[in-house]
């Protein structure tokens, strides 16, 4: 009976994970690791089925975070020759490597994740109302 709620909850948790990744990407846009390598964007990969759900429907039809992928695309380059991490030689001398995050894409992802969270919450609400209707029939 609670399969519907389990599924919607797993969807909400998954969308929260996506928004967490977006927040991490936006927060680390200018971060560099200890070896001078800039931060790489993180992308949450979702997969069907929620192994932690308590009901069979939740386990079969829910969603879970399968993996957090690290974006391997090339870094953004910014011209700043006085920067301590600026490249000293090569054709890109004077440029600083920056994280490969596109803030516009992250913003769109954030809107998408929060709207999807909302949709899952609305589905849970509808399921709750269905159960309440059935109970009203009994009393």
């Amino acid at each position, binding site marked *: 009976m609670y399969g519907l*709620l*389990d599924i919607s909850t797993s969807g909400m948790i998954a969308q929260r994970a996506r928004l967490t990744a977006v927040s991490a990407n936006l927060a680390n846009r200018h971060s560099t690791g200890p070896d001078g390598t800039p931060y790489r964007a993180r992308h949450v990969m979702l997969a069907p089925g929620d192994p932690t759900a308590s009901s069979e429907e939740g386990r079969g039809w829910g969603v879970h975070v399968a993996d957090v992928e690290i974006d391997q695309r090339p870094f953004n380059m910014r011209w700043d020759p006085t920067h301590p991490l600026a490249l000293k030689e090569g054709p890109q001398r004077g440029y600083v490597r920056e994280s490969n995050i596109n803030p516009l894409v992250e913003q769109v992802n954030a809107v998408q994740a929060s709207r999807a969270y909302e949709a899952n919450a609305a589905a849970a609400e509808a399921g709750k109302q269905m159960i309440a209707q059935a109970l009203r029939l*009994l*009393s």
Partner: protein
Amino acid sequence: MTDPLGLIGAQNGVGGAPASGGSRPPISGPSFAQTLRSSIEEVNRAQQDATRAVEDLATGDRSDIEGVVLATQKADNAFRMLQALRNRVVEAYDELKQMRV
């Protein structure tokens, strides 16, 4: 249709011809008391789960607020269901009590 309480099968004995001697068929399945007890235990378990989830959220042991809301919701629904069933049973008992013999 399932008949967990065995009420449908028992109707023959109540409304039909009076059972003479020991000809009444034996009632199979769990008794009403057993069914009630097991559902109360289930509701209790759901409420304990919800309480533990809320405690864990408050103390920081878990961070998925959605799971806590789900546990609370399950406990609430289970309790409402039990309450509705109990009201129906009490109603039926009152009806029986007021019956003139």
